C-alpha cells in the first residue's frame, strides 16, 4: 500500500500487527511502546523523522483506547493525570533544549546513548530486585497462613518505606488524590512528571518506562492506577508531541490510522489482562521492556546501524 504523505510503500498487515503488539504492551504496562514502534517503522523503510512523528500520533490513539478501558475498570486518577501532563510537557521542552545544546557541542549521539543505557539498565535492575523481594515476602508470609498468594489487583511494595517517607514531606500545596488514596505535595508530582518529560524529550518516545515506575515507587500510586493514569497522561503529552511534529511535516497520519486499527484491539486486551495480575507481578513482567530498549541502543552504538 502506498502512503503518499511519507512517500513510502508499506504492507498494511505489517502495520496492523506492529500496532497490535504495541497496543498489547501499552494496555498492560502503561507505556507508549515507542522503543519498539520507532525501529519497526524504520524497518519498513519509513524515514526516521516520519517514524518518530507517526509513532507519536499512533500512541495518542492507542492510549485513548487503553485509558478508556482502564477508566471503566477504575484504574485512572484524572486529577493526577492532568497535573502530571503539565510537568511532562515542561520536562519534554527542557529535554529537547538539552538535545540542542549537545548538538552544538557535537557529542549528542554518544551522550544520549550512554545515558539511555544507564537509565534502562537501572530501571530493570531495580524493578527486578523490588518485585522479586515483594513476591518472596508475600510468599513466605502466606506460607503459614490460609490467605494464599497475592491475589489479582492486590498491591504492595518492598520499597514502601521510602515511598512513605517521601509522602511525609509536607511542602505546600498538598494535593489529595482520593482515587489513588494518596495525599502528596504538588511539587513532588510535578518533579516526577518533569523528570519523565525530560527523559521523553532527551531520549525520545513517551518515557512511560520511567514514569510508570516513578508513580509507583515515589508517589505511592497503586500499580494498576499508575498504568491507567500514565496512559491518560500520555494522551495529553503525546497529542502535544504529535502537533509539534506534524507542523514540522513529520507525521503521516494515514500510517498512524492503519497501525491504530491493530493497536485498538491489542490495547483492550492488554488493559483487561491487568485485572488478572497482582501489582508486583505486573512490575516483574515489566523488567524486560527497558532491557529491549537498552539492547537496541547498544546495537546502534556498536554497529552504527539504526534499527
Amino acid at each position, binding site marked *: *500500500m502506498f502512503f*503518499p*504523505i511519507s512517500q513510502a510503500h508499506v504492507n*498494511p498487515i505489517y502495520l*496492523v500487527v506492529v500496532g497490535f503488539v504495541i497496543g498489547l504492551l501499552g494496555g498492560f504496562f502503561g507505556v507508549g511502546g515507542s522503543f519498539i514502534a520507532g525501529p519497526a517503522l524504520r524497518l519498513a523503510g519509513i524515514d526516521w523523522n516520519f517514524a518518530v512523528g507517526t509513532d507519536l*500520533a*499512533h500512541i*495518542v*490513539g*492507542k492510549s*485513548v*483506547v487503553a485509558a*478508556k*478501558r482502564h477508566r*471503566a475498570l477504575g484504574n485512572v486518577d484524572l486529577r493526577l493525570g492532568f497535573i502530571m501532563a503539565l510537568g511532562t510537557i515542561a520536562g519534554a521542552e527542557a529535554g529537547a533544549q538539552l538535545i540542542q545544546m549537545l548538538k552544538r557541542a557535537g557529542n549528542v549521539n554518544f551522550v544520549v546513548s550512554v545515558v539511555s543505557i544507564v537509565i534502562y539498565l537501572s530501571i530493570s535492575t531495580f524493578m527486578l530486585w523490588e518485585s522479586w523481594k515483594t513476591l518472596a515476602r508475600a510468599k513466605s508470609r502466606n506460607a503459614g497462613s490460609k490467605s494464599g498468594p497475592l491475589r489479582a489487583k492486590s498491591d504492595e511494595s518492598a520499597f514502601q518505606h521510602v515511598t512513605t517517607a517521601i509522602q511525609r514531606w509536607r511542602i505546600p500545596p498538598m494535593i489529595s488524590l482520593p482515587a489513588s488514596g494518596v495525599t502528596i505535595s504538588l511539587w513532588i508530582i510535578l518533579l516526577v512528571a518533569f523528570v519523565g518529560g525530560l527523559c521523553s524529550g532527551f531520549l525520545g518516545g513517551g518515557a512511560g518506562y520511567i514514569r510508570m515506575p516513578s508513580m509507583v515507587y515515589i508517589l505511592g500510586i497503586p500499580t494498576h492506577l499508575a498504568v491507567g493514569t500514565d496512559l491518560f497522561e500520555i494522551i495529553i503529552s503525546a*497529542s502535544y508531541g*504529535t*502537533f509539534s511534529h*506534524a*507542523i514540522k*511535516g513529520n*507525521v503521516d*497520519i*494515514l500510517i*498512524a*490510522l*492503519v497501525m*491504530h*486499527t491493530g493497536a*485498538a*484491539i491489542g490495547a*483492550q*486486551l492488554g488493559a*483487561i489482562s491487568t*485485572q488478572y495480575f497482582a501489582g508486583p507481578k505486573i512490575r516483574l513482567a515489566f523488567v524486560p521492556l527497558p532491557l529491549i530498549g537498552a539492547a537496541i541502543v547498544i546495537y546502534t552504538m556498536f554497529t552504527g546501524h539504526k534499527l
Partner: protein
Amino acid sequence: MSPRSKTEVRRTLRAFALELVLYAGLVVVYFFAVLHFLGGWLVQLETQHIRVYAVVAILLIIGQAVVLESVTTGLLRLLRGGRSE
C-alpha cells in the same frame, strides 16, 4: 486447571477468535472506504495548510480511537452474552 476453568478459557478463546474475524472484516472495509477517500484530501492539507493538518491529524486519531473502542467493546459484549469481559 479445573474442567470449569478449561471451559471458561475455551469459551473466551472462541469469542476472541470470532471477534478477530469480525474486526478484520470491519478494518478491511475501513481501509478501502475511509482511507481511500481521505488520502487525497489529507495530502493536499499537509502540503498547503500544515497547521490545519496537524489539528485534523489529532482529531482523526482520537476519533478513530473512540469509534474502534466502542466497536470492540460492543463486539465483546455481544459475543459474551451481555458481559463486557
